[in-house]
């Protein structure tokens, strides 16, 4: 991993901190966050609610500026939204008046690109996530899992180098969620993207990631970075094996014996 990171860093955060004023006192949201992800690496950012994961996402998305530190994407410091990333949010956030295809093509329209040039890619992505035949459906005709897949296609339509996913399957039921995790791994192996996956589920993080970055709250800071040395392609059966359990146990230490994370 170490060599990979040096070779081709897709995203790098150096000592990123964030303070923001609130009614009572200044809030220290993030404290000295440093992390990097190399090309084709799958990094999970794990932490309990309120540890600043989603705030970190907003910084990387260029929606709010950090108080100090540097964020680089593909070696360039960011100062606003960057086209070379794709973001999948907690909820699908589809536009109810757009069909599946139109939702997938949303950012092509926003960036004033030629929609015709991306229609083929959109159909290909829709097929890849198993929504073939639903191109002209409206969002409310789809289930929650299907909507989130549309959100995934929308984030991938411009073929970004980096995909950031913010608890994308948090709203789904446990079985759909496991299924989506398996599919995401398959998609990641096929698409060769770098993924930064934000989650509060320890087992989800261990299952998916090459590396788990554990965050603790108030202020949000990195407690441990753990390489997950499990073979690909990982299966759901692996989740009951001793090495998997060992990783989960080691991470849980950070959150007390009650394991109040998930």
């Amino acid at each position: 991993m170490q060599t990979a990171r040096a070779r081709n860093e897709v995203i790098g955060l150096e000592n990123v901190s964030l303070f923001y004023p609130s009614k009572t006192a200044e809030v220290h949201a993030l404290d000295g966050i440093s992390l990097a992800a190399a090309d084709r690496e799958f990094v999970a950012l794990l932490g309990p609610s309120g540890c600043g994961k989603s705030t970190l996402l907003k910084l990387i998305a260029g929606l709010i500026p950090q108080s100090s530190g540097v964020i680089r994407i593909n070696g360039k410091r960011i100062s606003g939204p960057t086209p070379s990333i794709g973001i999948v949010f907690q909820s699908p956030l589809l536009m109810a008046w757009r069909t599946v295809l139109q939702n997938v093509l949303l950012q092509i329209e926003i960036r004033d690109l030629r929609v015709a040039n991306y229609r083929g890619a959109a159909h290909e992505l829709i097929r890849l996530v198993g929504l073939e035949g639903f191109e002209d459906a409206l969002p409310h005709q789809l289930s929650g899992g299907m909507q989130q897949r549309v959100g995934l296609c929308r984030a991938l339509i411009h073929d970004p180098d980096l995909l950031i996913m913010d608890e994308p399957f948090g709203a789904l039921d446990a079985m759909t969620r496991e299924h989506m995790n398996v599919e995401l791994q398959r998609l990641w192996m096929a698409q060769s993207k770098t993924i930064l996956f934000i989650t509060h589920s320890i087992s989800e993080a261990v299952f998916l990631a090459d590396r788990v970055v554990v965050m603790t709250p108030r202020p949000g800071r990195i407690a441990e970075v753990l390489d997950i040395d499990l073979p690909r392609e990982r299966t759901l059966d692996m989740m009951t094996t001793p090495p998997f359990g060992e990783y989960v146990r080691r991470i849980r230490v950070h959150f007390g014996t009650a394991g109040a994370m998930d």
Partner: protein
Amino acid sequence: MPDLSSLDTAKNRILSILLLCLVLVIWQASPVLFKIPAFILPSAFAVAEGLWRGLTNGLYLYHGAVTLFEVLAGFALGGSLGLALGVAVALNRRFAYFIYPYIIMFQSMPKVALAPLFVLWFGLGVTSKIVTAALVAFFPMMINTISGLNSADKDRIDLIRSLGGSERQVFTMLRLPSALPFIMAGLEIAMALSLIGTVVTEFLGADAGLGMLMQSMNFMMDVAGSFSVLIILAVVGLILNQTLIMIRNRVLFWERLGRVDPGAAADTPIAEPEAPQAGNALPASQK
């Protein structure tokens, strides 16, 4: 309105028609049964007769056309101004700050109370009616436009911004479509109020229109005639409302498949004086 479609069977339809007949029979018999004089409650036949006379000699057609024109002109004027000002208020915080006190002041005032002044200022012709209708249509339209444009959720705004979208794109791709259910509901309220405003102003003083016709029939104790004009007014209101519902279903195509939308005002009965504004259970008009 609750969903009653499951009750719409052939048997229930026949029962429904029988119920109507029963009501008409009781109505027809009531002058005799309850000894109600005809100048208080005319019999059903007398009303039907008055309706037939008014329709065949073209009287109702002429006055109906005048009223309809006033309603539609006032609705178009007030509605478009309400929409424009609503957009301005929602987009410009500074503008909103300075105009809000006036909006709140006018909101709490019964707008039809200005009708006598308008008759005084603009005379007995169509102008005073159009102005009143426009004024009452203006407010629900503006309030609903503001609420609608502000209803776009923050996460979707963030989504568009994270994709490099400008404020203009946030408006056209998100805030405007999000506002459409509210705007359509606003149109329905505005239409209902325009009809009320027009008729009330015609009562006060007019040289034509259904309201003026009813008023003059009242003076001549032609109560059956008054009732028949009421029926015409109900039909006009129904047609206007149904037309808007048809337009709404087409515009809000993404809400047609059995989903509840914020503008549940669609089923509000028309012509219930002053009720729609406060009582219409619109999240919008209650701020």
